[in-house]
């Protein structure tokens, strides 16, 4: 697992189009956050982008220099108007915000499974987006976050991704992770063996909320974002990454995120015209989502366990 992270690092250092790589690493963090919950529990969630959004809001509002806040956030609460924190504390606070929000949401919702969980988490996404869009005392409302220090470079993103992957790895190897997998495979049997399904799911939800909030913090330090960027499209994209990579393994989450990010940035530059051997390839804008949608449906139909087939990466593959 760690091998992979360093491989990515090596690749990046020599690259000229860095922003694509940084974005890829941030999406690794988001998808790993999704995976911690969906992969381990097998319960669907459409709501994780709301944790990303809250993390982004927290880190964003707190790290804009207070002199520049009135320009695009005129009606902030007083204590937010004057507080400014540095880069690392803002990321930590973003993670905490995501985790606390996940706890608050999860307390009632973790009793639901299947479709009901899908719809309920979707409702959470709707509510979060609605409130962030109109409640201007806690953020820029419909404005874009500008003037956030752009500290998410390659290194910050890579370290962030490594932290997320490590956290997810340790968690799934811990007894909590194993209990959750037991629940996923056979809930009645697991419950009979004395596992509290509710508590274990809540734990996974909170951890994935932490990771997602952290990703939001990274994201806001990377690009000027607004509430529109943290809604259905991102939900779709990150879910597609997870499904295409393989829902039930951490390796799948990472592979999916990197593969789709690579495809995404290739098509994005192709939308502006990109030079390939033998000419320039130009595709109309919007092709990205079409390709990803088709891929996602295809993977679901042909190979429901994703590219990696739900297996973890292991060194044994190399020896074969």
């Amino acid at each position, binding site marked *: 697992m760690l091998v992979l992270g360093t491989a990515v690092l090596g690749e990046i250092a020599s690259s000229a189009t860095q922003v694509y790589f940084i974005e890829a690493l941030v999406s690794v963090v988001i998808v790993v956050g999704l995976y911690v919950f969906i992969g381990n529990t097998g319960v*669907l969630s459409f709501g994780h982008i709301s944790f990303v959004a809250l993390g982004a809001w927290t880190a964003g509002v707190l790290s804009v220099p207070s002199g520049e806040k009135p320009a695009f956030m005129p009606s902030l609460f007083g204590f937010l108007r004057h507080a400014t924190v540095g880069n690392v504390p803002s990321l930590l606070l973003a993670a905490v915000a995501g985790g606390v929000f996940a706890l608050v949401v999860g307390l009632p919702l973790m009793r639901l*499974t299947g*479709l009901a969980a899908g719809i*309920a988490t979707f409702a959470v996404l709707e*509510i979060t987006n*609605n409130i962030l869009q109109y409640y201007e005392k806690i953020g820029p409302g419909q404005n874009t976050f500008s003037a956030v220090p752009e500290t998410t470079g390659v290194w910050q993103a890579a370290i962030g991704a490594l932290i997320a992957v490590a956290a997810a790895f340790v968690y799934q190897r811990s007894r909590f992770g194993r209990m959750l997998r037991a629940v996923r495979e056979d809930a009645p049997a697991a419950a009979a063996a004395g596992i509290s399904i509710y508590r274990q799911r809540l734990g996974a939800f909170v951890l994935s909320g932490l990771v997602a909030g952290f990703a939001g913090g990274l994201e806001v330090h990377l690009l000027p974002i607004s509430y529109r960027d943290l809604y259905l499209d991102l939900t*779709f994209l990150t879910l597609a990454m997870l499904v295409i990579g393989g829902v039930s393994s951490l390796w799948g989450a990472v592979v999916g995120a990197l593969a789709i990010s690579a495809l995404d940035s290739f098509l994005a530059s192709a939308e502006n015209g990109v030079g390939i051997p033998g000419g320039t390839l130009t595709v109309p804008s919007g092709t990205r989502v*079409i390709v990803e949608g088709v891929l996602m449906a295809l993977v679901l*139909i042909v190979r429901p366990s994703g590219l990696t087939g739900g297996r973890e990466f292991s060194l044994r593959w190399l020896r074969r």
Partner: protein
Amino acid sequence: MTVSWQTIADAVSLGGIYALMAVGIGLVFGVLRLVNFAYGQLIMSGAFALALAAQWNWPVWAGILLCFAVVLALSLLMDRLVFRPLREQSPAVMLVATFAVAFLLQSIALLWFGALGKIASSVAGLNTPWVIGGVDIRKISVVAVIVTLACLAALQLLLTRTSVGLHMRAAALDFATSRMLGVRANRVIASAVLVSGFLAAVVAVLLTVQFPLVTPSFALRDTIVVLAGVVLGGLNRPVAATLGGFTIGFASGFLGGALPTNQSQYLDSFLFAAVILVLLVRPNGLFTRHGGTAQRL
């Protein structure tokens, strides 16, 4: 809070339209256990068909015909290409798949028609008001309610008086058993999908009259709200789902029209908070009797 008759009429007609969408979603859910997130994109395609027909100066009836043809063809395609291969998967996987289809259709529309959208003005004449007893009511509000009632009545007849309807109800109750008793799976699913597509086309016509500007995200928000309404009412029972759709449509139309903007902007939050609450307190829905249907989730 000022309430005009027009607000109430609009709310009733929106409730009717949402009820139709709820039926369309509920029918497919009944036989397939599939929540079709891409339902709104079917409506959007129908709306674009109407817009194109208007652009080519086709007569109104031809435009509506084109709308129905496009939506029905797309429904069948969706069933054949996506739903059928995935039939054995869990509802959650199918929900993700329809999510993918929804985005696919939306971005095809974006590619084809651009983000700014087109105007579907073929049947806009219905937007003018009738004056009834000194009160202005837009014609479309009345027409929408009548069409809704007619569709629901026809559907009721279809479900209770024909063998196809009987098969559909049987399949909704217990798919495996009904299959053993001679219900042909592919046919009953295809017919449910067709009826649901038909309703989507009707909704497309009704919605474009009220909102003539057709963009790629046309009906997206409506679908999300209707999905919430269907869950609110009770996914397992068509009548309950319909009532749920109507309720949420009426509530959203009424509050949206009656509240001042600085309050109605949070309308979505309240609607979805209500959905979460219902899911927690009565997972089978508001309009269902307890213990009637087993939760098959």
